[in-house]
Structure formats: C-alpha cells, structure tokens
C-alpha cells in the first residue's frame, strides 16, 4: 500500500523466515515488544479479579521482568545485536520457562509478534553458542540416545503396558503412539486409550520400533538430535501405512503435529498422515454413537487445558517472506494465535458423562496457567514445576472441584505430585482414564 502513496515512505523490504535456527529471523519481533505485558496477564476480558491474574508461570514465580516474555525479548534482542553475552543467569532465564504459549496468544491478541518462535529460537541459540541446554536436559538426551526413551528405561520394555486384553493389530489405519511417559510411567493412560479404541471398534497398531518423539530435545534447542528423531519416526509411520497417528499425550501431539514439520521445513499436511489426540477421536466417536459413556461418575470436575493440546496445537505451515513498511509482511501470513486449539472436545466429552458436574477454573482455555511440567522444565527446575502445579491447584481448590482432569501424562504427574506434597483432597486423572471408566458397562 505504501508504494501507491503520493509520498514515498522509505522502508527496504527485509527477507525472513520462520526458521528458529537463526535468531536474526526474530529480531523484528523482539524489537517491537511494547511491554504491555499482555503476555503475562490473563486476557482482560476474562480477567477473573484480583486472584489468578496472570498466565505466565515464569513471570509469576520469578517476578523480575527478565523472566516475562517482555524481558526475554529485550535480552534476546541485546544478544542478537551483540550487546549482551550469555551468563549463568541468562541461561537460567531462557530455560526456566515452560514454553507454554500463554505469552504467544496473549501477545497476538493485540500485536502480531512471534513470541513462542522467538523463545524457541533463543534456546537453539543457547545450544549453538555452547551454553545450553541445562545439565538435566543433557541427561535426557543421553537417555534417548542410549535407550530411545527419555527415562533411560530398557527399550525392550516400551510395550510392557500391552497386557491382558490389549492386542494391537499388525496393520491398522490408526497408529497409536503412547510416548515415553504412558509407556513407562503412566501405563494406565496407554491402557485406557487402548480400551477406548477397542470400545469404539477401532483397531490400532503400534510403531514396530517406537522411539521417544524428541519433545524435550526440540524444546531445549537440541535441533540436530530432535531432527534425527523426527526423521526416524515419520519414516516409520509412513512405512506402516497408517492414515492417522493418535496420541494420548499432549506433548507428543504437538511434537508430531507442529515441531516435526517446523524442524523439517514442511507443513503438517505434508507429513502424509493425520496427527490427532485421543480426545479428538473420542469426541467424534461419542457424537456419532460409536462410543457410549453410560457409567456415571458423580463428581465435581474441572478440566485443565494442556498447553500443547490447546493453544500450541494449531497445525504448522512454513513461512518465508519479506517484511516491509510498518512491519507488514508479504505474502500474507495466517498467524497461529491459539484460537483453533483443541478446547471444546474434552469439555464435550466430560459433559457427556452421567453425573459429572463440569466447572471451569478462572483461567481457562487460552488463558490457562501451565502445570509447569513440560518443555524440559520439570527436569531442570523441579521446584519451579512443583510451584506452578501448586499455583494451579489453588485454583482447583478455589472452585471446589473434587476431580482435576487433563489430557497429558506430564500434567497428570506434576499435579499428582503437588497434590501428594500438599495433602490436597483432589483426585487427579487423565481424560483417558475418565472415558475408559465411563464406558465400562
């Protein structure tokens, strides 16, 4: 538009792309942060009052501006311009963050800045510069390298959850990817998922040689290792002929649906198979009558939106373009704002269970407060992760919920630990367990 004006506005067009391996791609975003702190506060429309005002665990816990996205943008900008070097505090600041996407959707309510990508890119830069990731992350990387799972458990025990009546098919349209946590730690989630699929009349197969999705590798900036995981896993699914990859873990979902394409420079569509979470499948089956939930569950329940299933789950499309006058880009960019995350399906499922009284927490959907476990946080900053879970549990208690449900084993574990440590009288369940219990005749 500027070109058509009678007065010439000077602004050379600069090329950029959504490539997190080069922080220079995000200098514009870092330099245009206005410090409104929309990244930290709950959307003003949904602001619940003077309790539960914020949605950024990092800013809330550590308080200094440096820990909020606005601070990280300034620090990152200074680093990108060579005005500031890494030190121990800088590394801590970049990793003591759940990368939960709350800041990204908050910012994109008013601006068009790519905060999440910038934060991911800063972690990649930390690894490139030899200061990242944190020691705990290196341990996970070592575990994955040795045993193909983040816990360092024996690879051959990965399918030990398939006991009793659980009989994965040799070939099926649906490939169930339970991920490391449901395979080794929370087997009840994998088992419940299998039961739900069976009840819906769907065969499923497993990957012949399932390996960690690489969520933590990607999240902490170890892109070479993460890319290797992505290539292997995608190839395995393609070879299997599966049309749908189904996860019961929100972190795995995002890794497959968003991070893999992002790392490989392709779109989610170009994976060649659909990636969905159990709740998307179950919701459809319930609505078309294939899955019936008849067993009552008398409880006052609330649902916690796992970040990677909600605001971070929109499909990925690579972007390469030019930025011109007023920061406008061409070609036109459809920005990921978290608006189309999986919000309705889990709620519809839970409401369909007889006896369930579903109540919302003050911070819900795109404003939800992260449990604190994901993206390498629990491993490197266990105290912070526990603090975040306790903060969220305060909300659960505030609304008088008896049962807290999420759709990610990472959330479940972190909440369960907070409940145990705090002696809180709240039952923590994964949504797969709830559905599974409701379909038992």
């Amino acid at each position, binding site marked *: *538009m500027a070109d*058509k004006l009678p*007065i*010439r*506005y*000077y*602004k050379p067009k600069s090329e950029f792309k959504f490539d997190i391996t080069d922080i220079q791609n995000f200098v514009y975003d870092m*330099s*245009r*942060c*206005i*410090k*409104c*702190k*929309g990244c*930290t*506060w709950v*959307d*003003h*429309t949904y*602001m619940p*009052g*003077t309790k539960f*005002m914020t949605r950024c665990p990092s800013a809330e816990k550590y*308080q*200094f*501006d*440096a*820990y*909020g996205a*606005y*601070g*990280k*943008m*300034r*620090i990152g*900008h*200074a680093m990108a311009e060579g005005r*500031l070097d890494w*030190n121990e*505090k800088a590394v801590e600041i970049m990793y003591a963050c759940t990368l939960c996407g709350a800041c990204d*959707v908050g910012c*994109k*309510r*008013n*601006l*068009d*800045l790519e905060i999440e990508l910038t934060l991911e890119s800063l972690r990649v830069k930390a690894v490139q510069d030899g200061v990242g990731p944190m020691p705990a992350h290196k341990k996970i990387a070592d575990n994955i390298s040795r045993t193909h799972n983040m816990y360092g458990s024996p690879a051959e025990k990965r399918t030990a959850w398939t006991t009793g009546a659980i009989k994965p098919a040799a070939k099926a349209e649906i490939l169930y990817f339970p991920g490391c946590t449901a395979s080794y730690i929370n087997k009840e989630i994998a088992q419940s998922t299998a039961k739900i699929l069976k009840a819906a009349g769907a065969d499923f197969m497993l990957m012949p040689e399932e390996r960690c999705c690489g969520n933590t590798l990607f999240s902490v900036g170890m892109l070479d290792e993460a890319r290797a995981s992505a290539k292997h896993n995608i190839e395995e699914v393609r070879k299997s002929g599966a049309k749908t990859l189904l996860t019961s873990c929100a972190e795995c979902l995002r890794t497959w649906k968003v991070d893999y394409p992002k790392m490989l420079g392709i779109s989610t569509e170009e994976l060649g198979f659909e990636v969905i979470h159990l709740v998307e499948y179950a919701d459809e089956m319930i609505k078309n009558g294939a899955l019936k939930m008849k067993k009552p569950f008398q409880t006052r329940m609330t649902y916690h939106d796992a970040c990677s299933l909600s605001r971070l789950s929109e499909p990925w499309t690579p972007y390469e373009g030019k930025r011109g*006058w*007023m*920061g*406008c*880009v061409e070609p036109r*960019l459809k*920005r990921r*704002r978290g*608006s189309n995350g999986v919000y309705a399906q889990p709620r519809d499922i839970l409401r369909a269970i007889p006896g369930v009284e579903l109540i919302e927490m003050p911070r819900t*959907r*795109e*404003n939800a407060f992260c449990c604190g476990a994901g993206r390498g946080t629990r491993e490197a900053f266990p105290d912070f992760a526990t603090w975040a879970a306790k903060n969220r549990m305060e909300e659960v208690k505030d609304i008088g919920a008896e049962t807290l449900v999420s759709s990610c084993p990472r959330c479940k574990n972190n909440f369960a630990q907070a409940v145990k440590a705090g002696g809180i009288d709240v039952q923590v369940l994964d949504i797969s367990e709830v559905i599974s219990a409701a379909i038992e005749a």
Partner: protein
Amino acid sequence: MAISKEIYKALESVAGPEYISDDPVICEGYRSGPGGYEAGLGYERVMTTVPGCVIMPRTTEEVQRIVKICYRNDIPYVPYSTGFYGPRSHPHVEDALLIDLKRMNDFVLDEKHFYVEVGPGMVYSPIQEECMQHGAYVVIGGGGAQASAIANLIGDGWSPLSHRIGLPHRRILGTEIVMPDGELLKMGSLAQGDDPFWGEGPGPDLRGLLRGYTGLRGCLGIVTRMAIKTLPFQPERLEPTGISPNTALTLPEKRVKWINFTVPSKDEQVKSMREIGHAEIAGAVTKVPLFWRAIAKAECKEEFWDIWGKETEESVANFFIVRVLLIGYTSEEQMEYDERVLMDIMNEVGGIARRTKPSDESWIKNADSAGMWLMCGGYVSVDYVIETLSQSPGHGPCYAELKKKYTPPLMPDYGDPGWFQSFEMGHQGYSEFLVYWDPDDDTNPVDQFYVDTSKMNIKNRFYTSLLGPHQPLYLTGPKYGPNYHEFLLKVKNEFDPKWMSHPPVPLAHDVFVERAPWMHHMKDWESPADIPK
C-alpha cells in the same frame, strides 16, 4: 555513582536476596526498548538506559528504607510499576536503582463506602472485575487494562468512561507517598488514621501536585497506596465471550448498550455531546477516529493497511460518528428513559442509529490501549487536551494540519481530526490524537513534531496535557502559568533537594533537546545555561 557491594548488601537486607539483582541480564530485562509508546524515538535513544540494579519491595516500609539508603548514598532511583508506556518511566541516568513495585499489589474493596484501595502493582482490569462483581465500577483508563492503576491515575486516567466524572484527580482518595528522602506523607483522611475514605484534608491535599497534569513520573516520590473512588454500576454480569484475539464482553442489553450514531456534521457531533451531558444520561460519549474501525475489522496488521488504504481525505472528512454507552444504573426503566432522551437528542441533530454490536471490546474492562499498536507493531504517540467542549473539537483540525508537515514519517491519515468526547457531563471536552510511524523510518521528524505540537497548542491556546515531563519545561512552563516551571522546580527542590528521584525529570525533555543535535533548531525559548547536557 555505582552501587557498591556495601550498599547492595544494605538494600538486600531490606527486600531479601530473592528480590534484588544487579545481574546485567536481569537489568537488560528492564530496558525501555525500541517498542512501545514513543519508544525508539530520540528520547528513548538519548535519554534512557538500563538500571544498575533492580529491587522489588513488598511494603511501604521497605520502600521507605530503600529510598533512605539511596538518599544517604546518592543513588538515583526510579519507581517502576508495570513498565508500560515507554521510556519516561525508565532510568535516565547510569547506575540508577530501579524500584520495581509489582509485588505491591494489595487490593481492598470497600463496598459500603464505594472505594477500592490498591498498591502500585495492581492493574486496571482485575480492579474493574472486582468492582463489577460488587455493583460498582472504576474509571481509570489511559494506560489500559494491564497498566498500574496508581500510575494511571497520577499519569493519565481518562477514558470514555470519564463522561460522568472528569479529570482523574477527582477519583483519588486517601493516598500514601514515600517522599524522595524516604519520609512518609499521607494525604486526606489517611493523615489522621488508617481510613483512606476521604481525599481532601484534614491532612495536606497535595494530589494535584503529585500528579501534575499528566504525571511527574515519580520525580516527586513514590505512591505506595491509594484509595480510588468507585461509582455505582448496574448489577447484571457482562459476560466474557469469544476466544483470543476476538474476545469481548457481552452486554446485558436492557442495562448496558452501545449505540453508534452517524450525524450530519461536526457541529452536530458537538451539540449532541453537550445535550447528552446536560441531560445527565449515558456512561460514555465519544467520537472515535475512523481508523479505529479499521483496527476493529482487521485480523492482522496487513489487513488493517488494506482497509485503511481505501480511505480518502473525503471519506475521513465526512465521517461523523457519535458513540454512546447507555447504562441503566438503577433499573431497566431508567435505561429505557435514557434511551428515549438520547433518541430525542439525536433526532434533533439528525443522527441516525447504526447497527451496533451488543458487546464491549475496548472500554469497560479493558481500556484496551494495547490493541492500538496492531497496525505498526509498536508505536503510538498522542497529543491530548482537556478543554471546554466548544474549544476541544477545534484542536483536531489544527493538529491534523500540523501532522501533514511531518507526513511521512507519520502514517498517512488523510487529515483525520483525531477523537474527542465530553467529560464531566459536557463540562469538559477532551481531544486526543494517536500518531503512528514505522520505527525503521527516519524518526527525527517525529521528535520535532512532538515539540512542534506543544508550540501549536501554545499558539492556539489549547490547554495541552503535554506539560512538564512530556515537553521541555522551559518551553511550556512560562506559557502555562506564567510560572509553572518555577513553581514545579521549587517544589522539586524542596521535596528532593539532591534530585535522586528519577533524575532529570521534570527537566528531562529540556535535557533531551540540548543533547539531540536534530532538535537544536527547534529551540526558540529561553532556558538556564546550567541544564545538564
């Protein structure tokens, strides 16, 4: 003087080791930065720097102790609440201590006596939500939902909701301020007891001094506690709806309703506002600029420019809208009565009611100034005047004419005459401009435009808000006083003889003009030779 280890230890003993840091990375997080309100301009580049140390007190007593340590050791300090609104609230001198007040976010609502009491870390939208849950509302506005209520009220504090109540100092009740040397000053009834209900005496009533006209950015001390008057509201819930970025409050239409009217001309706009005020109806009455409509429609900044690019000088010149918020404060019947009165007024001026969404996106709970940055990703600056309702609408065309001289780098606005509205039931008229530019353009003309705006207001006798710390004090002071500058500096010297509290405010813009070579030719006013360079 840099903060020595000894002084650091002393400060640490006040707030605790968790809440103080001189780590360069922590300090970098407090940079004003090139994004935001007037940031990236010469003022930001020339006048601001990162702090030497940051401390986060929790209580008034801690603030006092910190300030006393600073005063004793000649450490300049800057109070900082939420950090929004740009360079003027950031350190202007090297090695300053930034006192981050966000932990002081106490909140008390006194439903019976219609006030809330807040600390400087409490922001607007939670306060409004709490108030609405108790049948009340506050008028804070200005900086927006996510800005400190106290900073807002001592800085700006006006919004369309000011229609009923006017200038912000009317809403400030009992207030507590830590003076630049650490002494505690309590204003209003707080001077006699722990009851902030009353803002005026028997204690000293320094509220006007404290806030100046558009705030003095903490150069006269740190407000640590303030009671704010609330106003009665209607009882129905304004239900949040939508998903980000398209969220809004659904209005209970029998009690709260926006109606947009088009009217034939500017005269009718002004007349309708005056009549609405005289009839003592409505909660807000405003004429909005056309580009706000483009912001509301656009899903992204590129779309904004597509929409805005279709406007012309003619379409902008013929855009006469009056936007009215009706509130049935006491009953549905009152609402119906107000609506009938409104329709009578609008019929008289030839106004036509347009289809209006039954929701509020921007004002009641949001004061959503952050949304105004959409189109350029980071910039806005304003000129605003509070005048009579007959004088303020004349400000827009004058300002629009001046803008032409600086376009580019200012965005093409096709002669947009800004927005204006009535305050205090038509007693006051408010006129405001938002101007945008691409920070990557040559922004020196924007710095010059800022000062030229002041000269325009002086010449045309618009009672500009850009006094004191927003403009060279020696330019504006003699013209608005005639000794405003001398008065303000005497007060500053009395309160803060060592100039430790946010130096060199209120002379910061004078210093900027001296330091920035591209500003020198603008200087046609007298100032003392000893202004720091």
